[in-house]
């Protein structure tokens, strides 16, 4: 009874925490962004200069790219995860109407993600006497409509060109690449090297300022965001038009496509190699092989995880370029970033391998010790990271041995800490939930981040050499203490899982 009450209290406090977080983030953005910007706008007038227009257009392209990544995934989900589609299509409602509503929900969903962050600041600006700035939200919704239309057209085109079986994989990978492309573009100076990327940025700015090279209509997005009626109407018409076009073209076809997708799902999807090597032996090795196979064969998971791995790229390039160049703070900073990102990716993978078990009863009814199976699962989460980190860490160990050793140890500690947190605070779920959750829980996410940051700081201090390395003891000890405090025995884990179920 007490446990149940405790469980209820835990759930209630979680709800309050969630509510505080949900309201806190936009409030914070409003206070630090919207209010000061509103005041600034009372003194400075925003005019559609070529540079401002270029920046606004670039920002909208970035938003559109991120939205498209979301809507493409949502469109594919609408095709493959039938949910209530069978019921709706068998009702007297016209398929086109059903699909229009569904597409509209996709647009609303993506608008909500961006609107959540931008509504507060924009309202704060408007309240301070700049009402036309609310047009930014209208532009955002038009962008959401356009991205929904484009995502649906792209998904349907993939469906036509490469067929139902490959569309899902291709779309998921495309969505991940589209989503990451903006980040990679923003990090161009780390990947390409400062000289080349500066000239790229300078070229963009120079072209924006050059009266000879004016792109007609480039200032319309900015004018629309500032509330000018004609550009605003044009942007809304363009967004709504693309959405209407997608609905009109795809609505009638979507029912047939969804049925084809369902047939493809029922068929012999994904034939693995018929040649099969010798069986492995023992619970550890067979669990490791099973988890690696499942990771590799889930394109949606892989795309999500690879997207996080892409964030390592700029850091890796930066590290290798800076290695041996002396005492620039950028170098230990990169060591820290690499450790932190490695821990984050490990956390995601460990959640998939440890908690997202499709046949928990099979494991529970087997005579293999839980710890042995769990080690196999953690090894499966760590192995891909070891492979991904090796090309950065091995050269680093040669170019800057101390920093290389610090980064290697930091990454290993960070990966181990994330793995342990996911074992101690398991939250069983289905693999399909990964796209929505990505991690075990908010609590685990925050602790992973905190411990990862402390380990990263330790590695960075060691990479800076003496006397800084002496100070590394403090964050390392703190990380260790946090982990010790949160440690759970097998019995406690089993009890927590029982209460949760």
């Amino acid at each position, binding site marked *: 009874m007490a446990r149940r009450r405790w469980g209820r209290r835990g759930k209630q406090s979680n709800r309050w925490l969630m509510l505080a977080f949900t309201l806190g983030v936009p409030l914070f953005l409003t206070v630090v962004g919207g209010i000061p910007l509103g005041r600034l706008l009372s003194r400075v007038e925003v005019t559609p200069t070529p540079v401002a227009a270029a920046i606004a257009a670039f920002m909208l392209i970035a938003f559109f790219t991120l939205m498209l990544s979301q809507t493409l995934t949502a469109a594919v989900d609408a095709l493959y995860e039938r949910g209530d589609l069978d019921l709706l299509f068998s009702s007297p409602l016209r398929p086109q109407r059903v699909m229009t509503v569904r597409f509209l929900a996709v647009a609303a969903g993506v608008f909500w993600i961006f609107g959540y962050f931008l509504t507060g600041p924009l309202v704060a600006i408007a309240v301070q006497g700049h009402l036309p700035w609310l047009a930014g939200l209208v532009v955002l919704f038009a962008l959401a409509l356009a991205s929904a239309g484009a995502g649906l057209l792209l998904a349907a085109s993939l469906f036509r060109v490469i067929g139902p079986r490959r569309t899902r994989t291709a779309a998921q990978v495309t969505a991940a690449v589209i989503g990451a492309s903006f980040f990679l573009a923003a990090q161009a100076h780390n990947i390409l090297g400062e000289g080349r990327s500066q000239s790229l940025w300078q070229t963009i700015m120079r072209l924006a300022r050059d009266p000879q090279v004016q792109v007609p209509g480039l200032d319309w997005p900015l004018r629309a965001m500032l509330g000018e009626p004609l550009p605003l109407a044009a942007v809304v018409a363009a967004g709504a038009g693309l959405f209407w076009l997608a609905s009109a073209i795809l609505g009638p076809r979507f029912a047939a496509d969804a049925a084809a997708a369902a047939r493809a799902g029922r068929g012999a999807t994904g034939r693995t190699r018929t040649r099969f090597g010798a069986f492995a032996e023992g619970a550890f*090795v067979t669990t490791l092989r099973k988890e690696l*196979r499942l990771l590799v064969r889930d394109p949606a998971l892989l795309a999500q995880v690879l997207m996080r791995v892409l964030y390592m790229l700029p850091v890796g390039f930066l590290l290798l370029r800076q290695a041996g160049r002396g005492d620039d703070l950028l170098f230990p900073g990169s060591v820290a970033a690499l450790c932190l990102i490695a821990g984050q990716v490990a956390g995601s993978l460990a959640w998939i391998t440890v908690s997202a078990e499709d046949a928990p009863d099979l494991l529970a009814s087997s005579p293999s010790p839980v710890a042995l199976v769990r080690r196999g699962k953690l090894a499966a989460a760590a192995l891909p990271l070891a492979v991904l980190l090796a090309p950065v860490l091995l050269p680093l160990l040669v170019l800057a041995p101390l920093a290389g050793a610090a980064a290697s140890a930091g990454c290993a500690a960070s990966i181990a800490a994330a793995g342990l947190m996911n074992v101690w605070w398991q939250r069983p779920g289905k693999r399909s939930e990964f796209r929505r959750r990505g991690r075990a829980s908010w609590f685990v996410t925050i602790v992973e981040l905190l411990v990862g940051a402390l380990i990263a700081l330790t590695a960075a201090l060691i990479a800076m050499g003496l006397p800084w390395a002496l100070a590394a003891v403090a964050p390392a000890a703190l990380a260790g203490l946090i982990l010790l405090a949160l440690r759970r025995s097998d019995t406690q884990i089993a009890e927590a899982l029982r209460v949760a179920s």
Partner: protein
Amino acid sequence: MTDALSLTGLTKTFGAKRAVDNLTLNVRQGELYGLLGPNGAGKTTTLRMVAGLLKPDAGRIEVFGTDALAEPSAAKRLIAWAPDEPMLYDRLNPLEYLEFVAGLWGVPAKAAQAKAEELLRWLGLWDNRGERCEGFSRGMKQKTALAGALIHDPSLLILDEPLTGLDAAVARQVKDLLQERVKGGATVILTTHILEVAERIADRIGIIQHGRLVAEGTLDELRARTGEAGATLEDVFLELTAPDESHAASPAA
């Protein structure tokens, strides 16, 4: 001879509901035992406790004389558990699945590989060995799960509704397989709602209701108990599990 399974005073409560109530039953070695009962009678809960998936509140479970609560690993080594929903991984093919299950039960690799081939050929899945289970029909999935249950040659095979959703041909294949295992010396316990199956293949039948064993024996013994000489198992079952006034009045009892 030691019983294959011996349950003594087994009890399990979920909140206010007593799912299994002081259940005592024995399953002999080399017999096919049919565990029957209406929905919610406690069949699956009982079997899940035997398989080590649930901890009983009270009572004792012995598998071939081994105390399953004190030495769970030793007991699990002898058991195979196959629930009504096959425990499979959609993105593994049957061979990969069997490799994993054999690894969990510590079957040597060479023996496991040979056994996997034998089982898949026997169950007509050899040609599908390279295909992922996600594309399989219900029957193919059930057969793959059965192969997984048999890969370590269990002495006690526990099957919860093994014939649910299977077409006639596959159901026949599964029934033949179970009878073969029993002839080979294994013990099989199965639950089923298809009473004709229990009537045809079970050596002894236990009927539980409200978590208690209400009757047990061969079909003839059960008929004798109800006093209906030519009755079918369905008649006997309905007679023995007819709504009980005391339970109707107090569902939590």
